[in-house]
C-alpha cells in the first residue's frame, strides 16, 4: 500500500536509538513497539541515575 504523507514524519520514522525519556506524540502514535522501547529507555535512565 502506498503510504500517506506524514505530518510528523521525523518523529514517526522511529529510530529506537534516538528515543529520549520525554517521548513525543509521534512516538505514541507509532504504537506498541515505540512505547515498549520508550519505557525501556526510561527504565535504563532511572537505573543509571541511581
Amino acid at each position: 500500500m502506498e503510504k500517506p504523507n506524514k505530518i510528523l514524519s521525523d518523529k514517526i520514522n522511529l529510530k529506537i536509538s534516538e528515543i529520549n525519556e520525554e517521548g513525543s506524540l509521534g512516538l505514541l502514535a507509532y504504537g506498541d513497539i515505540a512505547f515498549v522501547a520508550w519505557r525501556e529507555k526510561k527504565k535504563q535512565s532511572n537505573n543509571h541515575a541511581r
Partner: protein
Amino acid sequence: MKKNKLLLIGWDAADWKIIGPLLAKGQMPALKYIIDNGVYGNMGTMNPPFSPMLWTSVATGKTPDKHGVLGFIEVLENGVGVRPVTAKSRKARALWNIFHHEGLKSNLIGWWPSFPAEPINGVVVTDKFQKVSLDPKKQKPMASGTIHPKHMEQVLKELRMFAFEVTGEHILPFIPDALQIDQEKDKSLTVLAKVLSENVSIHNAATRLLRTTDWDFTAVYYDLIDHLCHSFMKFHPPMLNRVNAKQYEFYKEVVNGAYRFQDMMLERKLELIDRDTTVIVMSDHGYESGNKRLLELPKLQAAAAMDHRQFGIFAAMGPNIKKREKVYGLGLIDIAPTVLHHFGLPVGGDMDGKVALEVFENPGEIKYIESWEKIEGDFGELPRNHEQDLLNDEETLEQLVALGYIEKADEKSENAVRKTRCDLKHNLARVFLGKKDYDRAKHILLELIDVKAPIDTSSYYLDLVNVCLETNAFDEAQHYFDILKDHNSSVQYTLFFQEAAILLGKEKPLKALKVLEGAQAQNRYGNPELWYRIGALKQKLLMYDEALGAYEKAIAIEPDKAKYHAALAENFLELKQYEDAAESALTSIELVRYYPRAHYVLGKALEKLGNLQHAKIAFETAARLTPKTFHRAEKAVENIENKLCGAPQPQDKNSSKFWKDQIVVVSGLPRSGTSLMMQMLHSGGIEALTDNSRQADRSNPKGYLEYGPVMSLHKDNSWLHQAKHKSVKIVAPLLRYLDVQYRYKIIFMNRDLTEIVKSQQKMIGKDPENLPVKLFDAYTKQLQKVETWKENEPGVELIYINYTDVLNKTEQTIDKIANFVGQNLDMEAMAKCVDKTLYRNKA
C-alpha cells in the same frame, strides 16, 4: 496471508465540521488518504445518542430495544447496586460472535461495552483494559475478564500507559502554554493526561494485535475525540462570548490536537495492514462546535450527550470499495449488515440496518437469513442471563431481601438502583419514540410518571407531551404540559416549542406565533430552530414574505441544516419564485442527499418551471426514499406522466381523467349549494356516501345528503376508503384533513359571499340584512386557504362551480361536471334536481 480482511476503526464523536478545515490544511493526511482512495459521507446517528447504545447498534445492526444496551450504567445482577454498562446487558449477537460461528478470527479492542471479554475465536481487549487509577500507588490488578484469551493478559497489560507517564512533550502539542497553568486550580491537564494515556493504551494493544496476530476482522474503538470535546470544545475557535479569554488561549488547540493525534494513530495502523484489507473509519455521532455549544450542562441523565450532533463520519477504502465517491444516507445501524455482506455472510432479517451497497465497486447479491439469533451452535458468547428483565424486578428484589438472600441496600444505593432503572426505561422509551412506535413509548412513560421522589419525573412528562403531539392528541398534550409547567424540578426546561405546538394543534396559530416570538425576543444569541418554527407558522398563516425573513435568519445562524433550506424552498414556491425554490431545494439535497421532503419540493419547482422530465425524477426519488409510501410524491409522478402523455390541462387544477378509486367531494362554504350538487351527483349515478343523519328541513327541503363522520374528519379520516367511487360532502375548512393516499375530484361550489352569509343568517334565525363583517372576512380567508391547499396536493383536482350557473346554465354546467369526474352521468336526472324556486337569498 488472509484475504478480504476488514479493519473497523471507531472514533467516538468525530465530526466533518472539525475535520474539513484540518483536511484542507493537510493536517489529517491519513484520513485524506482514505477519502482520496475510497468513499466518504455522513453517518446518521440514532436517538438517544448515547455511545454505548450506539456502538452496540454498530456491532449488532439492531436498535437498542432489540440489543438491550440502554445506557451508560446497568443494574447489578443481584439488584443491589449499579455499575458501568457491560457486555452482559447485550442480548443480541455482535459481528464477532457471528464471525466466531463462521470460523473467522476477530480482534476487538476497547469496544464500548465489551467487558467481560467474550470467548471468541481471536483476541478481545475490553473497555476495562485502559481504565487505570491516576495514582501510581493505587493500581489494582487487572480484573478477570478484561482480556481473552487469558494467556494474552501478561503481554498486553504491559502496553497500558498511565496518566502519570504523560510528559510535557505529549502535552505541549495540545496546550503550548501548559507550563503557565495553575494546576492547583485548574485540573484540565490531568483530564488531558488521563484521556491521552487511555487512548494510547488502546492504540498500543491495537498495533500489537495488528502486527502479531492472524485475523479476518479487527475493530478498535477510541474515545479520545469525544472525551476531549466534552472538556475542551467550549474553548474551540471561534471564541464564545461567555468563555474566559485566558482559558480560551490555553485550550483553543486541544480539539484540533485530538483529531490530529487520532489521524497520526490512523496512519500507523494503515502501515500495518496490507493492500487487500478494507478499512472503515466511522463515528457514532458528531459534536456541536458552533454557537449552540453548551458551557454548562443541566443536571439530567447523560446531559453531556446534549452536545452530540446528528451526523457523524464515515470513510472507507479497500479492494471492493468505490474510489473518490461521496456516499449518502448511511446510518450507523447499517455497519453490521454491510460488514457481514463484505464477508459474504447473510444479513439477519431481524436487523434494523441495511447493506450499504453503494459503497461497493461490485455490490454482489445480498444473502439473508431469518435471524442470527435463531442459529444453534457456538457463537463464542458469555453465558446468557435468562433471568427476568432486571428493569422490572423490584418485587423480586424485595422478596430476596425479605428471604434474607441479599442484604437490604442502603438508602443511597437503593436510590441509585431505582434511578438507573428509570433512566434505562426512559432511554428505551426514547428509542421507541425515535422508531415512531408511540404506543410503546407512551406505555413506558406512563409507568415512569408514577415513580416516587426523589426521582424527578419532569423529563418523562416532557417526552409524554412530545408523544401526544406526535399522535395529535393535543388535549392530552395540554394536560401533561400543565403538570410539567407546575412541576417542581431542578431542571429549567425550555417549553416554548411544546407550548406553541399544542396551540397550533388546537388551531390557534396566532397564539402559537406569539409564544415563539416572545421566546425569540428573550434569546440574546438567536435560536435558529425558533426562527424556523416562526417561519413555518407564518407560512401557514399565508404570510409568505415574513416567513421568508424568518427562514433566512435561521439559515444565517445555522447554514447547514437541510430542513431550513427545504422550508425556504417551499416558501419560495408559495411566492411563485420557482427558480429560487429549486435552488434552495438543491442546497437542502446537497446537505442531506436522502431527504424526501427536499426532493419533493424540487419536483414541484421544476414542474412549475416546465421541466417535467426532471420534475418526474425528483418526485420519483422522493417517493423511493421514504420507508412508508410517499403518497403525494407518487401522485405527483402520475400527474406528470399524465401531462407528458399530452392530456389537456385546463385552467383549474383538474383533468378529465377518471382515476381508479377516485372520491368525488362536494365542498364549499355552508349554504353555497353543496346539498343540491350532492343530489345532482346522486341522481346522475355517483352514489352519495350518507347516513341520512341530517333530515330534510325548511332550509333544505330536498335533504342534505351528509355523512356524520365527516364532522370529525380532523380527528379520524380512516373511514374515507368507504367513499371510493362515491360522492361525499365535506365543508371547506375540513378539506385539508383528507387522507393523501386517495385521489379526489373536488367540486367546489362558489356562490356570492353576501348571498351565502345572508342565507346562513336566515337559517339560524338572524336578520339577513345584518352582515357580520368578521364572518365575511373569515370566509374570504377560508377560500384563499383552499386555493393554496389544492395547489399543494397532487392527489387533488378541483373545479369551481357557480351556484347561479347550476340554476341558470344547468346543461352546460352538468356537462362540465361530467367531463371533470371523467365518467358517464345521467345528465337528465341531474338536471331534474335543479329547482329554481329554492333560490331565495339573492344578494
